[in-house]
């Protein structure tokens, strides 16, 4: 578990720090994908969520979902290439779930990665999570969650 400037950033997850997105590799090899607590703090309360449809193939760093907060709209980008295999009906009903539980019930999509072995090396995990996010927060001028 890592906490950086008050933001919870579990170090057992895989992150694309620039895109502020996490992935968890499940036992069956699929991925659960979501926004970081830091991304939620920057955005404020999420009021709308439009994921890509299940069955759609998404390339790494392309949008898997669009979210809206305080009239801002932006993409959440796929940490690796893969097929969307599930979207989150609880988040569709209550997008604020993303803010309330970003690593649990607030997940955005589940994906079947095309080449996890080849692409996961670009993601950050373990001890590098805290230092990586601290550097990003410094660059962004962010005080804390």
């Amino acid at each position, binding site marked *: 578990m890592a906490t950086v400037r008050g933001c919870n950033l579990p170090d057992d997850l895989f992150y694309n720090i620039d895109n502020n997105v996490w992935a968890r590799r499940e036992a069956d090899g699929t991925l659960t994908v979501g926004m970081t607590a830091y991304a939620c703090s920057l*955005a404020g309360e999420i009021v*709308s969520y439009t994921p890509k449809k299940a069955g759609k193939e998404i390339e790494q760093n392309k949008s898997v979902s669009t979210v*809206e907060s305080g*009239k*801002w709209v932006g993409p959440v980008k796929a940490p690796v290439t893969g097929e969307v295999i599930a979207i989150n009906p609880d988040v569709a009903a*209550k997008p604020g779930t993303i803010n309330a539980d970003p690593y649990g019930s607030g997940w955005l999509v589940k994906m079947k990665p095309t080449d996890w072995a080849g692409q996961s090396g670009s993601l950050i995990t373990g001890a590098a999570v805290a230092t990586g996010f601290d550097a990003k927060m410094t660059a962004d001028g962010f005080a804390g969650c």
Partner: protein
Amino acid sequence: MAVVAVELIVTSHFPPVWRLLDTGVRRAAENMALNRALLEARQSDVAPNTIRFLGFEPSALLGFHQSAEQELDLDYCAANGVTVQRRITGGGAIYMDADQLGWELYVDRRALGLAEMSQIAEKICTAAATGLQQLGVNAQFRPRNDIEVEGRKLSGTGGAFDGEALMYQGTLLLRFDVEKMLRVLRIPAEKLADKAIASARDRVTSLAVLLDVVPERVAIIATLSKALANAFGVSLQAGELNAAEIGLYEAALKEIDHPDWVYGVSKPATDRPTVTAQRKFAGGTLRVNVAYDLPQQRLRQVWFSGDVFISPRRTLMDLESRLRDVLIGRMPVTVEDFFAERQVDALGITPQNIVELIQAALVDVPVI
């Protein structure tokens, strides 16, 4: 080393240059495609930071996540030459025509020195309000996204981002055709006929109402762009779209100028009921209209009307703004906090009365 030092000194003495772009009056689809193209170009670093001004042929613009069926009177739009389009930014549906001027910023987030989206919106809106003050109106930023004059909205705004690139846009009302707006938008007070028009005039204003003479478009652009440039410590240079942007624009237009884009968000109108309630108090009658998001159990828009005495007069308009998009479960504490923060003289009406009035409006709405 000496060369590096000289470069640093030179850089520090000359403000960065942003591009000033005026794309004139265009169809809504073209303006939306330019939104996407310019944001993508900024994200790919093939275009500079830019301030853009734009105009619209008559059009109804949905927020990115909104559905046309829920927000617009589509029959009226079709019969009156009002084109329906969907923005890439958030927020609510608006009506645009030659009576509004659009203003937009395309910037790298790092140029603003702010991380949180709400702070970025506040900084840009405050800068735009400063420019409007120089036109002679007492414009102020009102959280979260409005620029208002004495409680009446003069400019609504919204944004989109992609990576480090931001696009933030606002509309400035030069004149205001209340009736047309009410007819295009399915707003809660539409059934109130004359009262709806009076009610809309209480909430929205325009340069034509505020000033003896509406300044020329070119003068407004000069004043607003200068204020925005000053706020961000940059200078401006007039420019045109570059080849990369034109390529991105043509690709975006193919997708956006199509019914699949405009009507891609489909939600039944029954998921967005409009409900109402009214109560008599010692100081008069207070009525509330609520546009309610049933699946999300969220207030989308709240409108107060009636003849109650409340001072300052803008209090209820500010409360409407505060209640936008609030979950119904958080409505009571939001109302209580709102009144706790300010000095209000409301003859015989308590915050609890207002909470109960909103709850009364929603009493027949099913809980799902």
